[in-house]
C-alpha cells in the first residue's frame, strides 16, 4: 500500500509528509528536527509538546508531536514548556500542607483548559477539585499516567500547577505508606539456607554453574 503524501506546516515551514507518520518523524524526514524539542519518541517524556490547528475549522489543540499522526492541512506550533521548581513532598499529606506549598490550589476557576490540554487524557481539573477536598488517593490515581509535560500548567490562567501538585500528592502518599512485610524481610538475617545455596550456585566452571542454576531454579531449594 502506498502512503499518500500530505502537506503540513510546522513553525511556518511547509513540509510534505507521509500520511500515518508522526509529526516528529515528518520533521526528521524534512531535516527540520530542531523545530520541536524531542526526547523519548515514545509518548512518555513530555518533551515534544506542540499545538496543532486545522484550516478547515476542526478542533485542534495541544498534543505530543511524537504521538500525533500528520494530517493534510495541519498546522503545528512548537509549544515547549519549561519546568518550574517542585515543592518537597510531606509525610501524612493534608490539604493544608498542599496549600502551604502550592498556594494557588484554590484559585482554579473551573475552566477546564487543563483537562483539554492534557495529552494523556487525565481529568486534570476534576483532579484539582479532588485535591481541594483532600481526596488524595483518587487524585494520585488520576496522575498515574502523568508525563509531566507541563501543558496543564502552561495553559492555566490562574497559575494553578496541576502536575506539580499531582506528583506532590503521589510522593507524599507513597512516603507515608508502611510496608511491614518488606521491612520484616529486610531485618531478618536470611532463612538459614542462604549460605549453602550460594555455595552450590557459585561452585564450578561456567558450564557447571549454568547446569546448577538450571536445576536449582525449578524448585528454588536444594532439597
Amino acid at each position, binding site marked *: 500500500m502506498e502512503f499518500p503524501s500530505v502537506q503540513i506546516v510546522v513553525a511556518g515551514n511547509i513540509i510534505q509528509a507521509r500520511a500515518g507518520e508522526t509529526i516528529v518523524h515528518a520533521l526528521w524526514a524534512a531535516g527540520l528536527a530542531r523545530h520541536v524539542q524531542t526526547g*523519548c519518541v515514545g509518548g512518555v517524556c513530555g518533551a515534544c509538546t506542540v499545538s496543532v490547528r486545522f484550516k478547515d475549522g476542526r478542533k485542534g489543540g495541544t498534543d505530543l508531536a511524537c504521538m500525533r499522526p500528520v494530517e493534510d492541512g495541519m498546522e503545528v506550533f512548537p509549544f515547549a514548556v519549561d519546568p518550574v521548581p517542585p515543592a518537597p513532598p510531606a509525610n501524612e499529606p493534608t490539604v493544608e500542607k498542599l496549600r502551604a506549598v502550592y498556594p494557588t490550589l484554590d484559585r482554579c476557576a473551573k475552566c477546564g483548559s487543563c483537562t483539554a490540554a492534557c495529552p494523556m487524557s487525565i481529568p486534570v481539573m476534576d483532579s484539582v477539585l479532588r485535591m481541594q477536598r483532600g481526596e488524595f488517593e483518587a487524585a494520585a490515581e488520576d496522575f498515574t499516567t502523568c508525563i509531566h509535560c507541563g501543558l496543564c500548567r502552561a495553559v492555566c490562567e490562574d497559575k494553578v500547577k496541576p502536575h506539580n501538585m499531582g506528583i506532590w500528592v503521589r510522593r507524599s502518599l507513597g512516603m507515608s505508606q508502611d510496608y511491614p512485610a518488606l521491612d520484616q524481610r529486610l531485618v531478618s538475617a536470611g532463612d538459614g539456607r542462604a549460605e549453602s545455596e550460594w555455595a552450590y550456585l557459585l561452585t564450578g566452571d561456567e558450564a557447571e554453574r549454568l547446569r546448577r542454576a538450571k536445576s536449582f531454579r525449578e524448585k528454588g531449594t536444594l532439597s
Partner: protein
Amino acid sequence: MMEWARDSLEKIARTRPQRAEQPPPNLDERAVDLLVRDYHPDRAGMERLAAVGPNAGTQRFPHELADLLEADGLLPEGFHPSVDLATDVLIVGGGGAGATAALTLEDSGLQVTLAAKLRLGDSNTVMAEGGIQAALGPDDSTRRRFADSYAGGHGKNDAELLRILCERGPDRIRWLTRLGCLFDRNADGTFRLRSCGGSSTPRVLACRDYTGLEIMRVLRDALLQGQTQVLNHHSAAELLDDGHGQVTGAVLWDSRSGKLVSVSARAVLLATGGSGQLHLQGYPTSNHLGATGDGLVLAYRQGCRLVHMDSFQYHPSGACFPEALAGQLVTESIRSIGAHLLNADGERFVDELLYRDAVASAIIREVVERRGIRTPAGRYGVWLDTPPIDLKKGEGTLRRQFPGLIHRFERYGIDPARYPLLVYPTLHYQNGGIAIDSQCRTEVRGLWAAGEVTGGVHGTNRLMGNSLLDIAVFGALAGESIKQDLPPRGRITLSTAIRYREALKTLPNRPAKAAPQLFPPASGLKVEIAVSRT
C-alpha cells in the same frame, strides 16, 4: 479495522475458545537452543573485530558499533581544554542510573554536576513499562532469583555483579518507596507480583505499565529538590585525562549554543545508557532519541574494555502496526497475564514466557518461514492476542492494568480488548557494555560506570525487570564508591584521546563518521560545534 488482515483475524477468532484451555507449545531445552542459534539476530554473523583500542582483534562488535569505535572524535583538531567548570563529581547521563547516583551523593558534601544530553529524565528508564524485579514472593529467594537470571543470561553473567543485583533488590525497592514511588499492591497491602519470561516464581513489581515513568519522575522530582547541578542539553564529546591514564573530566557540548564546556572533575560517572538508535541490522527500536552508544565510545578510547558487545536484546513484542508505533514496546506483562502469540494461521507457536531471546527467535522463525502477517507498510509480524485477557479476567482488566497500551493504540482506533496487536522483535537493550567491578569502577582510574552502559550483570540475555533494578542498585553503588574512593583533582588534558586519534590514522579503511554520534542519523540532528578562537 485491519481489513487487510481479515482472513487471519477470522482464524484467530475461531481458535480462541479452544486455545483458552490448551497449554503452551512445549519445546525442550535442546530445541530452544537451536531456535536461538538459528534465528536470533545476535547469531546472524553481522559482527566484526575492531582494529584499535583495548579489545582490538579480540572481541567482535556489530558493524554499526565497530564503525563508531573506529570513528574520529568530535573535537576540532588542536582544541586545548581549559577549565570552564570545576566540580567534584561529573555524572554523564540523565536517566535512572545517573539520577540514582546523584541522589546517593546528596549527603556527601561533594559538588555534583549531572550532564544530560536531552533533559533530565529523557531516557530509556522513563520508557520502561513492565516492572522491576525483587525476590519478595513466598516461594522466592535471592538465590532462586539469581538462578533464573543466570540461566537466562546463558551463564555469561558476571556472577558477583548478579549476586549484588539480587541481594540488594529488596533494599532498593524500600529506598524507592521511601522516595514516594507507588507500586501496584494487592488488597492485603503486599506488592502485586507478576511473572516474566524466565521467572520460576512471580517477582515483578509494577506501576501499571508505566513503571519506568513512575520511578523516573520520582527520582527527578527528588533530584530537583537537592543540591545537584543539572546541565540539560549537555552531551559528553570526549573524556579528559591527567596525562597519566586517569580520567579527570570531560568536554561537554552544549547543543543549544553549540559551545564546548571543559569540566574538571575528581570523578566521572558514565551513565549514558544504551544504543538502540544504532538500529542494528535495520531493526526498529524501543529506545529514546539519545540511545546512540556514546558512553561505549568515550570509555573505549580511554582504555576500558567492553564485554559481551556482540549481545543485544531484541524485545519479542515491539509494535509493528500502525506504522507510527513501529518498534515501540508492548510490555511483556501482557504475555505474563495471558496474551498468546499467534502466527497467520492462528496457531500458537511458542511458550510466551520463555526467555526473551527464545521468544524473539521464535517470532523471527515464523516470519522467515512465511507464517507472518504483512502490514500495509510492508513490515511483517505475528499476532499478540490480547482480547482473551478481558474474557478471562473480566471486562476492563486491560484498561485498568495497561493504561499506557490502551492510550497509545486507541489513538489509531485499535482497542486491544477487541483486536489483537501485531508485533515483531524490536532492538531494546544493550546486554553488554563497559566492564566494571563490584564498585562500578571501570578499568581506568577516575572513571565509574553504571546502568545500561555497563556489561556483565545480565550475561547475554537480560530478564524483564532487571534493568530498572540495575539502575537502582548500581547507580547507588557507584555513588557510594565515588564517596569512598574520590581521587585528588588532576590537570585536564586530551592526551589519551589524542593518542587514540593518532592510532586511528594508521587504519587503512576508516569509517567516514565522527563519534560519539549523539543523535541517530535518521533524525537529521547534527553536532555543530561553535569554536571560539582565542
